[in-house]
């Protein structure tokens, strides 16, 4: 028995040794220590919850242009935030990249991100798309708007998110599950605009208009609109973009919501420098580069999103959708009110 235990211990140790090797030699061909001296290339460590194929090509370009290597670990955002908090001042991470302002706000709220005073970032990222203390910065803008099927909906019928609670949409509306942070942020913003009571009416109106139980993803929702299960739904535009990229004549159409009132609900994917970053300057350099004119176009286009940097124009397929008015409410509100929104959705039975 003891022999077996010893054998197991040895195996585990060797396995750990292997892991340490792969970790240090990960993305590039050159062997370098993480803490580089003047002659060796420098390395910035990133925790990212963005899908790897969307971000990796940009990191490669960054390394080409600046000579700074990027090592990144991909995981679900809540896990990354918990990991940062647990690692505290031992963290290897310089930068946290996640989607949704709610997550960025939470990381900021827990003291995991440090304020950055950067003229470059203040120039390229509008104030409403940053943390209150400049502890995080939006890098790409995503709009959560409506999609409809033109055979069954006259676009003149459509107007606002609030209007989708009207009984004339009964049995025609599709929503994604309220578990998804995108919907939590949307409802948080509704609370900000209308107060709890009115928002509760709106969301319970949505629930009674549902054609079917909420979907687990925006993609499925769009397919349901296409197939005729429902007529209208609320989704992030890039999911429709992906469908259109596969099929030019995709029958589901985008409608910009709330153009005459609060503007369409927007959110960001964004980044911040961690409080205990070993190399905060490198982290800042990376974020500045990602927000710069040179990187913004590609960063947004890879996921069919919009640039946050107002001087950079949207590229590719999304230009078809034209310009739109966006909700100017600071995004940190979405984070502050997220828990409130979740509770509200629980109360009205939005699953």
């Amino acid at each position, binding site marked *: 028995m003891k022999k077996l235990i010893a054998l197991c211990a040895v195996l585990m140790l060797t396995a750990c040794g292997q892991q340490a090797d792969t*970790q240090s030699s990960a993305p590039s061909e050159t062997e370098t220590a993480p803490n580089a001296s003047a002659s060796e290339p420098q390395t910035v460590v990133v925790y990212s919850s963005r899908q790897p194929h969307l971000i990796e090509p940009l990191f490669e370009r960054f390394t080409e242009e600046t000579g700074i290597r990027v090592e990144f670990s991909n995981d679900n955002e809540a896990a990354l935030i918990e990991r940062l908090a647990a690692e505290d001042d031992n963290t290897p991470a310089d930068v946290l990249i996640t989607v949704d302002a709610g997550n960025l706000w939470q990381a900021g709220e827990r003291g995991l991100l440090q304020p950055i005073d950067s003229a470059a970032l203040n120039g390229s990222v509008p104030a409403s798309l940053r943390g209150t203390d400049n502890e995080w910065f939006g890098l790409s803008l995503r709009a959560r708007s409506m999609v409809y099927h033109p055979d069954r909906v006259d676009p003149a019928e459509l107007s606002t998110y609030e209007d989708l609670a009207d009984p004339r949409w009964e049995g025609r509306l599709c929503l994604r599950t309220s578990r998804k942070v995108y919907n939590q942020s949307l409802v948080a913003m509704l609370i900000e605009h209308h107060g709890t009571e009115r928002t509760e009416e709106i969301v319970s109106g949505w629930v009674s208009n549902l054609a079917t139980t909420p979907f687990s993803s925006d993609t499925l929702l769009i397919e349901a609109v296409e197939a005729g299960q429902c007529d209208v739904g609320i989704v992030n535009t890039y999911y429709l973009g992906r469908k259109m990229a596969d099929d030019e004549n995709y029958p589901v159409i985008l409608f910009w919501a709330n153009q005459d009132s609060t503007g369409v609900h927007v959110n960001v994917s964004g980044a911040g420098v961690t409080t205990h970053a070993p190399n905060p300057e490198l982290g800042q350099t990376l974020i500045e580069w990602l927000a710069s004119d040179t990187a913004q176009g590609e960063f947004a286009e890879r996921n069919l999103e919009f640039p946050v940097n107002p001087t950079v124009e949207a590229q590719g397929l999304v230009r078809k959708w034209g310009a739109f008015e966006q909700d100017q409410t600071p995004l940190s509100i979405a984070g502050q009110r997220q828990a409130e929104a979740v509770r509200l959705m629980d109360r009205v039975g939005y699953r």
Partner: protein
Amino acid sequence: MLLPLLALVGLPLLMLVLAWFDPQGETWDHLSTWLLPRLIGHTALMFVVVGTGVAVIGVGMAWLSACCEYPGRRWLDPLLVLPLAFPPYVFAFIYLGLLDFAGPIQSGFRELFGGSPAFVEALSRPWAVLLILILAFYPYVYLLARASFASGGRAAFEAGRSLGVGPFATFFKVSLPMARPALVAGMTLALMETLADFGAVSIFGFDTFTTAIYRTWFGLFNLSAAVQLASILMLFVLVLIVAERFNRGERATGSEKQPRAHRIQLRGVRAGLATAGQLGLILIGVVVPLIQLLIWAWPELPAVIEGSMLRVIGNTMTLGLVGALAVVIGGLLLLAGTHKSSRRVMLLGEVSALGYAIPGTVLAVAIMLAFTRLDQWTGSALAGGLLAVILAYLIRFVRVAWGPLEAVACKIRPEYGEVARSLGVSRWRRYLRVNLPLIWPGLLTAFLLALVEIAKEMPATLMLRPFNWDTLAIRIYELTAEGQWQMAAVPSLVLVGLGAIPVILLVRRSVIR
């Protein structure tokens, strides 16, 4: 022997208990008003439906395979275990893709008849995930009940029949009670898996404790309340375990020489029904999912042999092999600590194996918190290392190894050891030359089971794996999260293929003549 294991396993359990010292009044009020009644209702429903489902299908199929004779029996038998190679979340996305409104089946009905029958529509509803879970977990009951029927069940049935009792009465009065321990053990495994499932229930949108834990943690930003929810989930598990212990009775000592008995020869309609029933189940549980995966994966299939995929496969296999080894060693410790022991020690053993029902995410947080704290005190770097993942596997799956080991342990008779000692064989040689060969089949079964489980495990791997250490399950997670099912089909296909190898070995080891 139990102590080191208890110390390891107790760690996350302790975290669950400690969470109650951090009361979350407001969140808790909200949860108990709006979520808890529904969650408890859903959990009860899962117990009843999945429990009944796996029992009826598992026992029924096992009875046919072990005691009857009908066309195709020999090759149907191993295929019936194969659904074990599919992770439940893969079943879930395949069947939702096939059955929901936009899927091919309902579209076909609309095209032909202008609408789908209500029962087809009902199959894409949230509760239909219960059927998916039955499909994914019935093989546990099947495997165990089949072995039990084969050893002795057949002879007892023959004896009953020779006394003039009808076949059904004999089955219910003689065979079934004999198989009860196996049935209960299989149901317990299936229900624990059901309670810990996150992937399948979230794809179907069926609210359970695991989804609520997620929601409380990520939506309400309240980890403490989430962990408190997890500890309530553990209460359900405790109920299960107690129920199992009470129903197990005396484990049959498994006489080595089984009386030869004849299979019941089914003829005509009955034989046809038996073959068709098993064939139908295999169609739903293996053939259709495989075809659907192949259709989705076809355009991307060359990607399977690309470098990055090979690396992912390598990672999956490394984690699986090392993890399974750790699990088996844990199982041996459990066995050594509890074999022929008092009830109280047995209970300690059960506590050590409790991890099976802790949702992977919660287990992962507990390990991460513990390891990072340890790192801060000692300056080690355990938190980001492989050890953390392996520990998670050990805690989560040690129960899987314990079962098969317990089943073979009864073969170690004290006489054998005494004889060996009287011949002057040293202690260690006795272990190696006498005991090891006796429990070897159980060891192998335990290892193979653990291997399949680890390859399918997703949430703990996701959170605890070292930098860039992707596995197939991780790939699938990244792609299914946004409904990109076609893209998820390639890693799923590879995972099912890899998982099938240990499953097939497992079946071959237990072929019944």
